[in-house]
């Protein structure tokens, strides 16, 4: 299966390269940043008519797989590659692959409780308890304690999660693993975990659909999805003890907190960061760029794009509801660009 898909894709690439005169660069990966990547590649093509970047939003896992197989020039992922994946790439190609953060996103809890219109406050314990299946009623003290004055029903909680493997799920479970030891040992973090409770919905629209349909339900979606579809969502208590509503400012705050301790390979999780105003369930999303390109024109074009993305490109982020990279991270990435040969 994999091999056939690879051959077909290669044939497609060859065919499209033959027809286009412009330099064509192919990438594949995460769906979450697809709106801004499309915008970026389009704008960059307008400025540099001879360079065309073609991006398929097939999912982070598929992006990592395709760039490792060598069927695309670069990958994209919502979660950093694991050590094993890095090793697999190194072994296959003889050189490494680099992570470049592009923008930031966040994941928010959303719910549907008949009669409750106020934005609910969630503590880490409450979220972990609900998704572990240990907190089963909405009026449980763990939830009610943080929501004084809200009349929570004694109804059973219906948990909804993503059924398709997803970067959103990765961030959500990464956060729960950090705030709950029980979650960490029982479930762990990943794009498709073995959920202790709940119903699965396909895609963000599947999750929101289930939540709208089922009274007393709770689930999680990307901030950008909640904002663009006017879905109400709750606040989450951060590591300094304040309840923070996710927005561009509080997400950037989470990144700024992480920027100081950013490792050189940019593989960092920024869930549950320090910082009084930081929203705790946020993440970078990364472009995965191989260290070496055999085609010099391709290499220069990709470097050119990354330079533009870190400067002018960042200005497109906020109009599409993504948080911009902090200045410190941009400066660090510009230095890392030299590693691409």
């Amino acid at each position, binding site marked *: *299966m*994999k*091999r*056939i898909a690879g051959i077909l894709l290669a044939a497609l690439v060859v065919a499209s390269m033959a027809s286009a005169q412009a330099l064509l660069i192919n990438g594949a990966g995460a769906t979450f940043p697809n709106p801004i990547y499309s915008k970026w590649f389009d704008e960059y093509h307008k400025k540099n008519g001879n360079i065309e970047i073609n991006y398929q939003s*097939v*999912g*982070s*896992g*598929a992006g*990592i*797989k395709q760039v490792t197989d060598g069927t695309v020039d670069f990958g994209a992922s919502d979660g950093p590659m*694991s050590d094993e*994946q890095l090793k697999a790439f190194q072994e296959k190609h003889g050189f490494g692959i680099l992570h470049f953060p592009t923008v930031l996103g966040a994941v928010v809890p959303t719910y549907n409780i008949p009669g409750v219109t106020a934005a609910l406050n969630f503590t880490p314990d409450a979220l972990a308890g609900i998704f572990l299946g240990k907190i089963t009623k909405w009026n449980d003290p763990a939830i009610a304690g943080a929501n004084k004055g809200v009349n929570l029903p004694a109804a*059973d909680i*219906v948990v909804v999660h993503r*059924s*398709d*493997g*997803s*970067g959103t799920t990765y961030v959500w479970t990464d956060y729960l693993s950090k705030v709950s030891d029980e979650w960490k040992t029982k*479930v*762990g*973090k*990943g*794009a*498709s*975990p*073995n*959920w202790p409770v*709940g*119903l*699965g*919905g*396909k895609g963000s629209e*599947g999750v929101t*659909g*289930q939540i709208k*349909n*089922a009274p007393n339900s709770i689930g999680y979606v990307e901030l950008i999805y909640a904002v663009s579809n006017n879905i109400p969502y709750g606040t989450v208590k951060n590591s300094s003890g304040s309840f923070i509503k996710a927005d561009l400012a509080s997400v950037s705050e989470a990144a700024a907190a992480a920027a100081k301790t950013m490792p050189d390979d940019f593989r960092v999780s920024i869930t549950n960061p320090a910082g009084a105003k930081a929203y705790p369930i946020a993440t970078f999303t990364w472009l995965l760029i191989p260290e070496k390109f055999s085609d010099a024109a391709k290499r220069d074009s990709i470097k050119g794009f990354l330079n533009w993305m870190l400067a002018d490109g960042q200005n497109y982020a906020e109009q599409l509801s993504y948080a911009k990279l902090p200045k410190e991270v941009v400066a660090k990435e510009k230095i890392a660009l030299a590693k691409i040969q």
Partner: protein
Amino acid sequence: MAATTTVPSAGPIAGSRSFLSRLREGDEIARLITFLFAISVVLVTLLLIFELWQGSALARHKFGLQFFLTRVWDPIAEQFGALPFIYGTFITATVSLVIAVPLGIGAAIFLAELAPVRLSDTLEFFIDLLAAVPSVIYGLLGVFIVVPLMRDYVQPGLKNTLGFLPLFTGPAYGVGFLTAGIVLAIMVIPYIISVSREVLMSVPRDQREAALSLGSTRWESTWKVVVPFARTGIMGSIFLALARALGETMAVTMVIGNTPTISASLLSPGYSIAAVIANEFTEATGNLHTEALIELGLVLFLLTFLLNGVARLLIVITAQRGGGTAHA
């Protein structure tokens, strides 16, 4: 034939033409080309089995038979057991056939035997239209209409009246085995009606006339003579429906709840083989996860293969019996 007799030189040697002359006339070329087309179907099937077998080597070696017997599906801990998915696929397909077979065959009998021709043809047009609707549309129908109806009326109703049976216990989420089975039934009914109607209509007139002349009523001639005569074809329509129900992905994943559980209750959320492959394949990062999903594909393939074999066998058996009674 008319053409060959008018050409004098072609006529006499028609029986003993050399290979070369046949080739020149194109017979042999046509034979070769069509043979290649026909054999390609076999090749694609073999290639499919080969790729599924190869692609799942890691998972097959690691889990062996345990793959079919365990029920934990945990991509993070790399534990993969297919039982809940096999169970879910079977249950939803069974529920759909239990609903679709009586409805579909009943409708086909009406259309073929009892309805006026004009009405029958008009309805057939709509049924063919239904069969061509993409499955995602049926999924949406399921999400927006069937699921709320099930949650608010059908499932509480079942629990209140038949709740003593283990089949109808647990919370009413709206999604689950029963809902998926109902949506699948809606999807496969057009197949059963369409094929069964054609088969019933092709039953020779003399069969009906003989029954009527022996004094049977219209219904008796339909039920005791026409339907048994056509049962091979009707069986075929049911297996066509079953094949569609087993492999349906989009509509099922939208209404089944996507939770790998094995529960006697039809109200419980579940998962099917096709749905989990579609859901997890793109984001499967570990090799073992990918290969376990490919092995699930192999399981589904073998399942359909097996069922097709059983179908063939049943058709052969009923054809023999049907033929015997029809000519008795």
